[in-house]
């Protein structure tokens, strides 16, 4: 060791620090994804296995083209994918509308109260996910809390919300709301109050102030929150399975079915590849919009 130069010794140290993570992520994250990609292009075998022939039809099947197991043109999978996108977008929209005003309210409190409410918002993130979803099963099912509560108020609505898109939407908003709130809050807190006052002094209406001053300045938080909520919502399968039942399938549920029930692994892998590709596209768009925003800010 003493024969090594300083640079050589530093190299060795860096190599030692980085090899564990390289082995871990390379071996158990990158390699599995590559094998999954290979599976998505392999032919499904007779009894749940795979035949190693090039077989792009799994991707065609997603779009509805006929293949060995689907005799006719059928857009059932396309419908499920479109529904996933619709539900994920609605989740983003609803949690945005819910969080935005509350972020302003929290930012105007005095320091002690503010910290307390921020603590309250982060806390559910640590509480078990399955338990938080289970709570909504209790609330939304026909004999559940919501109908009983309405009954007490004298309203016999007999809502049957569970196993509907609304139930899935509520569940997704509920579990991902801290991820939307915190980025928005961060940009609201940074907002320079003097800019708002200046806008009002110059005669702008409240709506104009919001649209021309407040909204553009809090946009980074809105964008970050939206992407962090959109991605896990799109691929979720626990929420549709507990609150959507068999009626509201999403891409994630479809992948699960192909792996654990239908045993068509190549088709499941193809669906997972599409899910991964859409996530990467959205991330890329986000990163590009970030660098564009930075370029704009750098402009005099």
């Amino acid at each position, binding site marked *: 060791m003493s024969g090594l130069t300083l640079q050589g010794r530093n190299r060795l140290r860096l190599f030692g620090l980085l090899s564990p*993570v390289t082995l*871990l992520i390379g071996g158990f994250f990158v390699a599995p994804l590559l094998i999954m990609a290979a599976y998505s292009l392999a032919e499904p075998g007779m009894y749940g296995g795979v035949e190693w022939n090039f077989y792009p039809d799994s991707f065609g099947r997603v779009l509805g083209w006929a293949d060995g197991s689907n005799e006719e043109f059928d857009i059932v999978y396309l419908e499920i994918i479109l529904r996933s996108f619709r539900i994920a977008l609605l989740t983003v929209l609803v949690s945005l509308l*819910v969080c935005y005003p509350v972020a302003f309210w929290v930012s105007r409190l005095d320091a002690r109260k503010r910290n307390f409410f921020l603590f309250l918002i982060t806390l559910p993130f*640590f509480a078990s996910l399955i338990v938080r979803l289970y709570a909504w099963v209790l609330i939304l099912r026909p004999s559940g809390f919501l109908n009983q509560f309405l009954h007490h108020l004298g309203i016999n609505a007999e809502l049957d919300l569970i196993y509907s898109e609304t139930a899935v939407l509520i569940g997704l908003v*509920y579990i991902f709301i801290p991820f939307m709130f915190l980025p928005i809050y961060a940009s609201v807190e940074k907002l320079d109050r003097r800019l708002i006052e200046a806008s009002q002094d110059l005669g702008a209406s409240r709506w104009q102030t919001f649209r021309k001053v407040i909204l553009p300045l809090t946009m980074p938080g809105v964008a970050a929150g939206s992407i962090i909520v959109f991605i896990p919502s799109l691929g*979720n399968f*626990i929420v549709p399975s507990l609150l959507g039942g068999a009626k509201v399938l999403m891409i994630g549920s479809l992948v699960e079915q192909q792996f654990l029930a239908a045993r068509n692994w190549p088709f499941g892998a193809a669906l997972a590849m599409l899910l991964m590709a859409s996530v990467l596209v959205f991330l890329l768009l986000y990163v590009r919009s970030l660098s564009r925003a930075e370029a704009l800010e750098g402009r005099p």
Partner: protein
Amino acid sequence: MMRRLGQNLLSGYSLLFFVFLYLPIGLIFVYSFNGNPLNMMIWGGFSLDWYRSIFGMANSLADNVQYIESTDQLLGSLRTSLSVALITALISTVIGTLTALALARFRFRLQGFYRMLLFMPMMMPDVVLGISLLIFFVNIGIPLGKVSIIIGHCSFLVSYVFIVVSARLAGMDTRLEEASADLGANPWYTFRRITLPMILPGVIGGALLSFIISMDDLVITYFISGVDSTTLPVYIYGMIRRGIKPEINAIATLLILASLLIAAVGLYLRNRQPAALKAEDSHGS
């Protein structure tokens, strides 16, 4: 006048938001003490019977209203969860900390690549992680069980530890390390006496975070847990899918209390950071 009205509306809206956040959790808590054996949605007096039932203790309920199949299964899944989470937290904390040190203290060409590589597992949908690991383990021949779960959890939790420890390293004064090196301490001694104590809150925070996420992970574990190595969330998921039973409320309440306790410890440690730094500063001078 309008302004006051707007303020009140905003406050009311925000309070509703917090009710939305906590009402569901509160409901489970209340229902878990409901002694009504036939309809758990109707209050039948305070009772600890469901808690007794999940631990297999005798209770005043008739045997035919005990819904849990076996306490052994429940406790077994709890044991699996705890051991998986402990080992996962240990491994991912060590590797994540080493990685954070490498990226913070060295300049090298692949730095950007490594940052991206560590970012990817956090952004990948759980279901993709789960099934790619399932295909991988089946093909490589690693049997599905505790080992596969631990490997799967470490492969994405190392990123979380990396982020937490990196944040800590970024706020650290490098002059202390330089001074230690200038005074002739070898790198290991500097690490043990200077760097480690200063980043310790970050390391502990990362360990707690990975412990909690590992304990709570459902989707990835669902795909890569074997038949006889069910974790607690997977077990509860199975229970809920078979039907709503009052014991689930008691288990859920205990689980929430446990994770809130860990979270509170974590947040307390984070708040203590400035104090710890001050103590070290005065110690150093």
